[in-house]
């Protein structure tokens, strides 16, 4: 691309010349999907109504649908997709494990324990709180659960100032098992209605989006994303192995801690708002690596774009599949995610254990 070379003053950038084009393409796809999310839904809306809804001069029912239902949903989709993809990317980088996803360190199960407790103990807890706050009890409980469980996993695997990656993964597995047992007990003591609520919450949905929820989760994810985006070089060094990274002058302990805190923050924030949505965190980084190569400075933004595109496409799918009913989004992401995961596994097997 001569234009890029001209802009960078004759300097040849350290990425393939088609990379800027790929980003423009991804951004273009994202914009198209985002517009589709606003324009296409079970209710047929005219262009005027959609524009009125976006410009916040909502007067007719149609434009209210855009500004109260579709726009917050789109915004939440952007936030959730970005958070899951970036966290997955950073965790896969730091753990040097292509199969790592945010669930591995207990964020999702922790959030689930919090949210499901809120569903089961709703009647006990809500009595003590003012009615306006009831809608936020579940997200707050989920966020707290994510923080507590992730914090526990990291403190367990930290000994003498060093965090062992192997211990971290095993501690994650163990703590996930404990959390699942807690979920089991919650399921046992719940009544049949709470059971249905819990099952549906576990499959995730963007349907609860309103502007308050979007603002809070955006604020949380924006902080985490800001720092995650700047971790490209650190994550690249980690690919050499932890010791080599350390000898290249990287404070590896600090990097690990940073990734843990930022992922817990980002994934906890979005899981609280939309429930545990599977596979985006696993899928998006791999797709990004396939198209922009292994450099994390490029993989991170590409993964964020891929993640939001995938999530919005899944949401479009569930909203328009069987109207007026709406299946949970977790079904759609896992339906794309499951086959992708298998494909990944099979091609890796063919490549005989070489690093991705």
């Amino acid at each position, binding site marked *: 691309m001569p234009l890029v070379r001209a802009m960078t003053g004759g300097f040849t950038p350290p990425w393939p010349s088609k990379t800027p084009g790929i980003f423009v393409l991804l951004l273009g796809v994202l914009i198209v999907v985002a517009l589709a999310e606003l324009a296409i*839904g*079970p*209710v*047929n809306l005219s262009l005027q109504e959609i524009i009125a809804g976006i410009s916040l001069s909502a007067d007719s*029912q149609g434009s*209210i*649908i855009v500004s*109260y*239902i*579709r726009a917050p949903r789109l915004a939440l989709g952007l936030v959730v997709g970005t958070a899951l993809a970036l966290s997955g990317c950073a965790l896969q980088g730091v753990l040097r494990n292509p199969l790592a996803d945010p669930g591995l360190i207990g964020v999702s199960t922790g959030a689930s324990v919090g949210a499901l407790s809120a569903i089961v103990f709703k009647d006990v807890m809500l009595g003590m709180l003012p009615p306006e706050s*009831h*809608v936020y009890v579940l997200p707050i409980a989920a966020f707290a659960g994510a923080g507590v469980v992730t914090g526990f996993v990291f403190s367990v695997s930290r000994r003498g100032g060093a965090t062992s990656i192997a211990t971290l993964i095993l501690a994650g597995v163990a703590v996930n098992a404990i959390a699942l047992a807690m979920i089991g007990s919650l399921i*046992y003591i*719940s*009544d*049949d*209605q709470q059971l*249905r*609520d819990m099952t*549906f919450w576990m499959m995730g949905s963007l*349907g*609860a*989006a*309103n502007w308050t929820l979007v603002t809070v989760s955006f604020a949380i994810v924006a902080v985490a994303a800001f720092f995650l985006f700047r971790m490209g070089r650190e994550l690249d060094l980690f690919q050499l192995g932890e010791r080599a990274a350390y000898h290249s002058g990287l404070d590896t302990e600090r990097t690990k801690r940073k990734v843990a805190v930022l992922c817990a923050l980002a994934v906890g924030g979005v899981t609280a708002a939309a429930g545990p949505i599977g596979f985006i965190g696993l899928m998006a980084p791999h797709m990004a690596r396939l198209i922009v190569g292994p450099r994390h400075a490029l993989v991170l933004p590409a993964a964020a774009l891929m993640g939001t595109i995938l999530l919005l496409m899944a949401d479009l799918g569930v*909203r328009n599949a*069987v*109207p*007026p*009913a*709406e299946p*949970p989004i977790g079904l759609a992401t896992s339906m794309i995610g499951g086959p992708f995961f298998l494909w990944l596994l099979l091609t890796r097997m063919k490549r005989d254990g070489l690093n991705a």
Partner: protein
Amino acid sequence: MYPLRRLSVFMVCLVVGAAAAHADTRPLRVVSAGGDLTEIVYALGAGDRLVGVDSTSRHPGETQKKAQIGYVRRVSAEGVLSLKPDLVLGANDLGPPPAVEQLRATGVRVAIAPEGDSPDGVLDKILFVGRHLGLDDEARRLAGEIREEMTRAIETAAKSSRGRKVIFVLSVGDSGVLVGGENTAADAIIRLAGGENAARGFEGYKPMSRESILQAQPEVVLMMKNRQGGHRSTDRILDRPEFSMTPAVASGSLVTMDGLLLLGFGPRTPKAVAELSSAINR
């Protein structure tokens, strides 16, 4: 029968048409989320005003032709709005709360029914539906009829009661059976029909251990007919040791009833009481 029904439909249309002409606020595009509420809407002769129902609305058969909005606790706001309703009748557990909030924000009237797994609850729900459909008189008349039928059914059931211990089995899984404990619709209908709930000491629908089932010594096993009308799960019950050794199976007292009829607490509850009573007090 048919011409008569057609005539009554015609009359309803006339009345509705006249009301619309007078720019009444009487809702004409109604979404009903709740099997009992849908039944009441039909019983009030306003079935043709329904534009959508939830997945628990299975009676009468015409509901199958209405748009399906999914499970009552997991409706999608935009999905419901796509039916352009002017009234959403919701069961007490209509949800999730954000969806209800979104519906209200777009200016749709959402009316939440009173809770009611009891004879009085049925009457409350009838009056509630009537009030929101603008059919107060019809609702009062229907509630009066149902009240009479109910009293008669409960009296008959009490007279013929033999104090049988009934266990309601919601589902049979490989790991165990889910039975209806205290404070469930199943518990309520069993007692109205002059039976005794054998599953005591816990609330809600819970798995019950083999030993406690044996200890409870149920004399009747009550189950829901599955939708295809088959009896596969009742066969599976007979094979299970905890049931095969109970008086219920020994005497062949296995009762299956339509789930919505049995547990819906709608206008057909007097019928459910009568049916169940004659089945368990045989």
